[in-house]
């Protein structure tokens, strides 16, 4: 049976009570996920967040989210926060060649831009590339 492998960028936000939990270890050990930390911060009140990509089997990924929530960690899937505003877009295409996952692409032959949020890995390259700020990250 082929396993459905996925890669998602997520933000984990945690309170002082769980800041001591070895979260990344747990994701590897219990769920066989490959985490790659992109950004992390813990403030003096010991509240913090980790922005990381998680690669692994879809089933395991889903189970890990449940486990994290049980621990009181809020999980935000970043892809769902990337918004393409069609009404602002000029349909130029400047975002398409820098998009690593082809979430933003051109429908040919009419050369119209489309956004497939399921493919988005929230790398935010499109935000830098778009000349009219038609892509935003709404946290």
């Amino acid at each position, binding site marked *: 049976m082929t396993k459905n492998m996925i890669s998602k960028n997520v933000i984990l936000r945690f309170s002082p009570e769980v800041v001591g939990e070895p979260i990344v270890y747990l994701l590897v050990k219990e769920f066989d996920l490959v985490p790659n930390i992109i950004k992390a911060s813990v403030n003096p009140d010991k509240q913090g967040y980790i922005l990381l990509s998680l690669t692994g089997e879809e089933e395991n990924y889903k189970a890990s989210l449940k486990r994290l929530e049980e621990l009181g960690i809020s999980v935000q899937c970043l892809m769902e926060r990337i918004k393409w505003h069609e009404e602002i877009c000029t349909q130029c*295409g*400047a975002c398409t060649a*820098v998009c690593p996952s082809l979430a933003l692409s051109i429908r040919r032959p009419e050369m119209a831009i489309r956004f497939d949020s399921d493919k988005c890995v929230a790398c935010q*390259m499109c935000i*830098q*590339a778009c*000349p009219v700020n038609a892509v935003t990250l709404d946290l």
Partner: protein
Amino acid sequence: MKSYEEINEKIRAGRAVVVTAEEVIAIAKDIGVKEAARKIDVVTTGTFGIMCSSGAFLNFWHTKPKMKMQRVWLDDVPAYGGIAAVDCYLGATELPSYDPCNSHYPGSFRHGGGHVIEDLIAGKEIKLRAEAYGTDCYPLRSYEQNITLKDVREAFIFSPRNCYQNYNVATNCGAETVYTYMGVLKPHMGNIHYSSAGQLSPLLNDPYYRSIGIGTHIFLGGGEGFVAWPGTQHAPFDPRNERGIPLGGAGTLAVIGDMKQMDARFIRGVSLTGYGVSLMVGIGIPIPILDEDMLYYTTVEDADIQAPLCDYGKEGYPTGEPCVIGSLNYAELKSGEVDFQGKKIRTAPLSSYTKAVEIAETLKQWIVSGRFQLGQPSQLLPGGGSPDRKED
């Protein structure tokens, strides 16, 4: 052979046959160039892309008491006031003084001259601020007022260089990402960007400027405008292919048009990460089918148009040394991926083809409905005329 007057007569009578530069390709394949030239009166073109060297002249009514505005700001973006008392010129790439620019590299350049032009056209309120030293006839030294385009006495776009005939295609051979006016270019030829409407682009459909000259009536930013002059850097004698298509930038146009007629869907302020601000401009130019040659030129296809692939990496374009590393045609570029030096590289446009189509279609409707007639150029552009024209 048809004359401008005959074509305009047909337009006025609602009998003109008008097609877009995309539609004419299939028509000529179907019925032949000769028959198509007989049937078709006008071919409409269109382009919508980032065009630096754009800007607007504005005249504010005189203030009470009167003022000779020496320094002018529109939403904190400086405009050039050294023209007369209440005239100014707002350039598309101008930035407000508070912008950190590239001190936080790469800068995001959220607001500038191009955005103010878009906001004015969209009918938004902007803040006019002016300072002066005061004279006997113009005593007022400071002025501040929120205004909209309606409050401005005259406003027209007058851009020294728009509508490049063809343009560089950009990649980055260097080892680090570069942030350019051709967009974000990833290292080691990670992507390729181009900026032309190709087969729909105005000057590629009249490569020898037989009909596009000073006084040509055009679609500019959603309103009507004119070709005012050859654009700066107009280089008509650059090398061409066997169809007369220039292999690099070549021709440019200075264009003029009333801002009060314009539509913000066809003129947009842009932020180019790490580079600055600019303006996306929509231009459509009608090509009169005066004879078979004119029709032939309008049948140009993407595969017939080559553009130079340039290295915009740190060792290339910025140095001022030659940086052309290859040649690609627009059919390859539009496909989304090219094979170059054994490497598959993804391509992306910076100009909007769907908007270019919309502009060519809109201009077609204007002409078909009789509201827009052709303007015969009062003078051709330098290098304009026939393929055997000579450089002075």
